[in-house]
């Protein structure tokens, strides 16, 4: 689906977003919202969006299928098919909204949880699972979908995005770059340095921070004393906080920031205020560090539920649509499950492949030793 050509934007004064007023970092002031948790469509003075019913159903479909994929991957991890999984449960709106704001020629630098953004880019979801199964460290060609490899060291990719955006500007292209990171990564020096570089070089990059409230077991209070979107002010570009569980607002705000970048007006920081409903990864246990009540409160703001309510109330989707989508979800789950189980272990010699582009004498020597060692078993008849 495409939602490229719809919403008209109003020009806005970016400085309005970056009030220096003191406020607790985790309250929700100045949250751009277009769809309330109750599924009511509301207006925002600076961001508006006008989607056709077909486009709205498209966003809903994206979120449902992404959640289904995520649930399947979580199950596969529990069944021992994946070594680890980083679930996006709860962050579907932030990812689908921002992901659908992108043009094909834009370039995405994800962290390791952007399964919904990958979906929007047309990356086959099974490609994302290789690294979690342990058969590669990424493996896809980033240039095919303009979707860079997942980056595990948090915040590193914000600099890659900035450099790439500097290159886009040098090339005179009008595409934009988006860097995803989390509230935990906002503490990293690399993120601060990427803010500095992007501001100094006026790079066409959007920093999309999914503040999901928890960096493994550390709450946002351990990362910052000011609301994250306000950081941008100190670097000289606008910051905006959007309801990260509102797919329409995420789409509108990201589209606006991307177009600002395209116009040569430099970076924007978008803080999507959202919630990770599950664990950081399948390795941690959120019951040890956060209260059930908190999750329950956020469940009431579920991004998928609120769009469904809106679609139903507005008469944009009928039962047949939801039934058909359920079937599509199950088909996707089955496809993912089968693809993972069929995923072959890499050839042993893959250890020595692609270490260098131009080759390296030591790698050649060790590959030969490895082969000789393996061959010695054959000679012994083992």
């Amino acid at each position, binding site marked *: 689906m495409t939602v490229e050509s719809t919403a008209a934007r109003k020009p806005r004064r970016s400085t309005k977003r970056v009030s220096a007023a003191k406020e607790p970092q985790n309250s929700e002031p100045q949250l751009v919202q277009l769809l309330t948790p109750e599924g009511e469509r509301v207006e925002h003075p600076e961001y508006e969006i006008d989607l056709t019913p077909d486009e709205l159903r498209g966003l809903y479909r994206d979120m449902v299928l992404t959640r289904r994929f995520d649930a399947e991957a979580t199950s596969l991890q529990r069944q021992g098919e994946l070594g680890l999984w980083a679930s996006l449960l709860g962050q579907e709106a932030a990812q689908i909204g921002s992901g659908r704001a992108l043009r094909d020629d834009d370039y995405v630098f994800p962290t390791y949880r952007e399964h919904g953004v990958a979906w929007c880019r047309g990356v086959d979801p099974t490609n994302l699972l290789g690294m979690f199964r342990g058969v590669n460290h990424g493996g896809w060609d980033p240039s095919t979908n303009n979707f860079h490899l997942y980056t595990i060291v948090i915040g590193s990719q914000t600099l890659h995005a900035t450099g790439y955006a500097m290159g886009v500007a040098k090339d005179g292209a009008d595409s934009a770059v988006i860097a995803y990171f989390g509230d935990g990564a906002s503490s990293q020096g690399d993120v601060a340095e990427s803010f500095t570089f992007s501001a*100094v070089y006026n790079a066409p990059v959007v920093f999309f921070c999914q503040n999901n409230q928890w960096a493994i077991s550390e709450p946002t209070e351990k990362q910052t004393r000011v609301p994250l979107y306000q950081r941008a002010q100190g670097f000289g570009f606008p910051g905006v906080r959007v309801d990260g569980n509102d797919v329409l607002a995420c789409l509108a705000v990201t589209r606006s920031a991307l177009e600002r970048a395209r116009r040569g007006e430099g970076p924007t920081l978008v803080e999507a205020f959202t919630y990770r409903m599950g664990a950081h990864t399948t390795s941690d246990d959120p019951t040890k560090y956060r209260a059930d009540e908190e999750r329950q409160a956020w469940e009431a703001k579920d991004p998928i539920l609120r769009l469904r309510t809106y679609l139903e109330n507005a008469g944009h989707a009928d039962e047949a649509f939801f039934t058909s989508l359920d079937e599509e979800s199950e088909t996707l789950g089955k496809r993912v499950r089968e693809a993972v189980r069929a995923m072959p272990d890499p050839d042993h010699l893959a250890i020595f492949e692609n270490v260098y582009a131009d080759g390296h004498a030591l790698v050649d020597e060790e590959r030969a030793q490895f082969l000789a060692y393996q061959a010695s078993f054959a000679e012994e008849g083992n």
Partner: protein
Amino acid sequence: MAVQKLPLAKALNESLRKALDTDPKVLIMGEDVGKLGGVFRVTDGLQKDFGEDRVIDTPLAESGIVGTAIGLALRGYRPVVEIQFDGFVFPAYDQIVTQLAKMHARALGKIKMPVVIRIPYGGGIGAVEHHSESPEALFAHVAGLKVVSPSNSSDAYWMLQQAIQSDDPVIFFEPKRRYWDKGEVDVEAIPGPLHKARIDRSGSDITLAAYGPMVKVCVEAAAAAAEEGKSVEVLDLRSMSPIDFDTIQKSVEKTGRLVVVHEAPVFYGSGAEIAARITERCFYHLEAPVLRVGGYHAPYPPARLEEEYLPGLDRVLDAVDRSLAY
């Protein structure tokens, strides 16, 4: 005139100029590389001639310099970044090790990382803390990186060209106390391979293996030893990753003795790697254990002590004597 006599720093400057001229995708980035021309003037005049878009003064943030260079390489550029001094590379170490070195492998070869990181390194110029270190082993240990160091003007000129043309990330260590040493550069020569060692001086009694700033010291030691009737072969390794073990092996099979000399601390240093591998390869040819001469397991000392810390002529000759005594 194809052959010019140039100081090593000027040879690097000419090399960068040629790279910028030849390939529009080559960029120079770093702190003070523009108007100032770098603190050692290696990039002198380049911004004036190629513009601020090609020769880019950066914020003072090393991780940012390397991290954005990675992004530019992903966009198809060939950044050559300058780290102002050896001891300043560590804020960028994460980007170099966790990102730059692994990107090609993580993408199963589908993307390339033609990034050169120039680092003036080593002591002997009376500098303050963090301005005299030799961290080459820390980079050579990392798969995915290549590590080289020229010792003379000709190599400075040609090896930098080759590093820029390489599709792999290359850490290019420049021996800062040799920046002002003059040497002949034939700009029309056909250079040898980037990672091949060079026999600087032939000999038959013992082999000295060095690179970068210590080659000159070893050549002087060989000359002094010759006066005592000892025939010393000197190898300029030129590359620390990969290391041209074949050339070292051939030399040691001839001389039966090897001393490895570098400024970096001996402990876990490149000398240890060379000693281990040459012992494996040449066990029956060796007349003495492979000896190492280098820095101590201590922070690089204040300038008034660096003469004690750095391997000089006497320490190299002492090692030669110890080896020959076996």
